[in-house]
């Protein structure tokens, strides 16, 4: 077990390392750096001015050295004028700059966001909290909904109920968020149709989430994942329902509801558990679309802003967090699977 955990942890570190290096490489190509310089000092500046700005602000060193600085294995850059340190990576609150100090991600310093003019850690904290709130409600809607749909459809394979529920779940999972979101806004939120049950913008939900302003974004993400999980649950349920012990129970004269609830359900839920955990990475995907669509300033929206403005350190921070979220949920799913299904053993 310990070996398994260690190897998973190693995978996580290596993946994060590789991904951040790729992101770092792409965001530090010459045109990208020029873009940063121009957005900082104004658009109409000469190449020489761009060069000098990049030098003064620590972008002049070789890429590997700067990646090391971000990691915290190379001392942070400093800029000196007449022997006096005027700027540097490791700036303490109050403006003084530490020389030959390490301040990278290993030291817990996530860097500075050039778009939002805040510490990256603060921005990520803020956006993760908002996305966490969204995800919580998505899970609250999606998981029970999907399980009920799947179990109802799977308990009598081929019945009318099964066919109609399967159609619904295939339909929702085949409709991407950028389609369903727009349709929902048009139908339920705009004066065009006139229902106006919910809000078409979730900006106010950042501070105060209500049924009105949070339903559409939650539903948009939840429905997409719900269909998929429901299909998995149904498959697992139908398989269990044909198992010999179920037939035995039937022949014994146990009532149908009792068979489903007491004998089938527990065994049928093992597969969906993994699927639900594996949905997390996909949910991150949906979050990018839905948060932009509903103008909800969480993790996905932050990613879009960071990428659009070549905000290097924010993008790196977002990458690290994404890797951790994805690999951690998979780890949990693997471990959880072991506990649910004693036949499987880790390592």
């Amino acid at each position: 077990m310990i070996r398994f955990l260690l190897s998973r942890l190693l995978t996580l570190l290596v993946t994060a390392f590789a991904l951040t290096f790729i992101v770092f490489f792409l965001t530090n190509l010459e045109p990208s750096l020029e873009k940063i310089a121009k957005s900082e000092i104004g658009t109409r500046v000469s190449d020489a001015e761009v060069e000098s700005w990049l030098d003064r602000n620590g972008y002049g060193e070789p890429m590997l050295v700067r990646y090391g600085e971000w990691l915290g294995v190379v001392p942070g850059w400093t800029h000196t004028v007449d022997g006096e340190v005027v700027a540097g990576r490791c700036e303490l609150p109050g403006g003084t700059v530490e020389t030959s100090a390490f301040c990278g991600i290993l030291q817990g310093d996530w860097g500075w966001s050039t778009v939002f003019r805040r510490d990256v850690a603060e921005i990520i904290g803020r956006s993760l909290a908002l996305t966490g709130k969204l995800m919580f409600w998505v899970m609250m809607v999606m998981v029970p909904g999907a399980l009920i749909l799947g179990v109802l459809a799977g308990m009598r394979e081929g019945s009318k109920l099964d066919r109609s529920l399967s159609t619904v779940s295939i339909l929702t999972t085949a409709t991407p968020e950028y389609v369903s979101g727009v349709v929902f806004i048009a139908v339920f939120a705009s004066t065009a149709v006139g229902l106006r049950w919910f809000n078409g913008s979730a900006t106010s939900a950042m501070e105060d989430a209500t049924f009105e302003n949070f339903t559409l974004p939650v539903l948009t993400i939840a429905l997409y994942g719900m269909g998929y999980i429901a299909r998995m649950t149904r498959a697992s349920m139908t398989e269990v329902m044909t198992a010999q012990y179920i037939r035995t129970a039937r022949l014994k004269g146990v009532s149908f509801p009792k068979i489903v609830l007491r004998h089938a359900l527990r065994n049928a839920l093992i597969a969906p558990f993994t699927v639900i955990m594996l949905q997390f990475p996909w949910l991150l995907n949906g979050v990018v679309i839905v948060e932009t669509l509903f103008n909800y300033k969480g993790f996905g929206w932050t990613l879009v802003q960071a990428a659009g403005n070549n905000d290097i350190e924010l993008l790196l921070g977002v990458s690290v967090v994404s890797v951790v979220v994805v690999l951690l949920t998979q780890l949990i799913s693997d471990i959880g699977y072991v506990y649910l299904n004693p036949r499987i053993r880790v390592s």
Partner: protein
Amino acid sequence: MTIHDPRRAGLHPAAEMYAAEHRAGRLSRREFLTRATALGVGSSAAFGLIGLPAPARAENHMPMGGTLRMEMETKALKDPRLADWSQIANFYRGWLDYLVQYEADGSITPMLLESWEANEDATQFTLKVRQGVTWNNGDPFTAADVVRNITRWCDGTVEGNSMAGRMSQLVDAETNMAREGAVEELDEMTVRLNLAAPDITVIVSMADYPAAIVHSSYESGDPSENPIGTGPYLPEVNEVGVRQVLVRNPDHQWWGTEVFGGPYLDRIEYIDYGTDPAAKLAAAESGEIDITYQTTGDFIDIFDAIGWQKSEVVTAATLAVRFNQDSAPYDNKDVRNALQMAVDNAIVLELGYNGRGTVAENHHVCPIHPEYAQIDPPVHDPAAAKALLDEAGFGNETFQLISIDDAWQAASCDAVAAQLRDAGIQVERQVLPGSTFWNDWLEYPFSATEWNMRPLGVQILGLAYKSGVPWNETAYSSEEFDTLLAEAMSLADVEARREVMAKMEKLLQDDGVLIQPYWRSLYRHYTDKVQGAEMHPTFEHHHYKWAIAS
């Protein structure tokens, strides 16, 4: 608001002349007001000169208190003189005041200045500082503050300081700083500006959005970090891209309360919905905002349909579909002329902006500018355009037209591109998101830029088409044009200036500097509760006039 008696001796002689011109029908009311007030005539006095009563403001019935929520892109703050977006200024306007203010009717209201006077040939301006103004940290506001701010504006050595171009007659060409003796402090409440050459735009320029007045403790950077100013509000939240909040400063007695009344609101929230108008509509229908920053294109009708109030203002704001003459093939004059000739501006107005404006003539001087001269409109001849292009050897060139993803700007560029294609010219369109478009707006070879209006025609030409100025996105560099512009800047008499302007307009057309299809009317929508927040032609937010009924 009356600060000058119209019957008082010493009223600027040019003001009388302008009044005569107005009566003769050569000057519209708006033009008259802009120019008379720029010479130091109070707006009531100016109305008096042309025999009209000054419009009274209904300030007694304004509801006090409340929160107004407006949709606006919340941008990172900069040193005010470096500000390149009205939105940046509209946030720091909460706690930073201006010397003078441009009103929606074209007049100029004295703010931190009580009055000003120009000498006969407009080379010397005497500025009287308003009495009894204090900074919100308790310091008194004096002539020294005015001198320091004007000197700051004149510092052309600071990268991106656009105020230096506006104050060019006070700047020493050699040091690129304020000229010795250009800004004089006569006494504690009086400042005199000694211009190198007559310049009629100097006072109007002080109303432009980068000209906010900062405290002596302010060096550079984000002004909200230590918000010392003379204004009635304070910044509470400043989250770039999310929201910005102004709250009334309870510990500061604002000077303007006695002069104008207001401020009425307790709290002003700017919420960022990006550039997509659909998101703003969703916000409006969800009750998340009370007022839009600006309503554009098809959304004007849609906002009307959901029952919001519409506020419209006629402006000299425009879209400049310009060529950058530093990039091939646009360094070739025939190419530029051919592309211009292939486009009918009226069609661009119709398709790109639903006809909500007036057709322009490719020279960026608007009929509402005082010195506008009627010259021949540009020729539209697609066949000749293609022939000219073939002759220049670029018949098979594929041109790429870049625009921002904003709805009406993209639509207008699509209309331009469609007409070019109709003429047999190959065009590709590229639409960039707002977050990336502005990184290189000056450098694109062929792209469209939104330009806000300036009160005088010479101002916009000085800002955008003079050789080497920071915002010269066309890379236009013509000695003849520069000489004419300098001449026009010195002519207080509008008829004389119009003659020079006619030459400049012709020059801009002939040199194929830009396709400038139309002048836009600007719109804004708000709920029934909002009062005093009408659309302003230069997007200025005069927070103290705003109110909301509970």
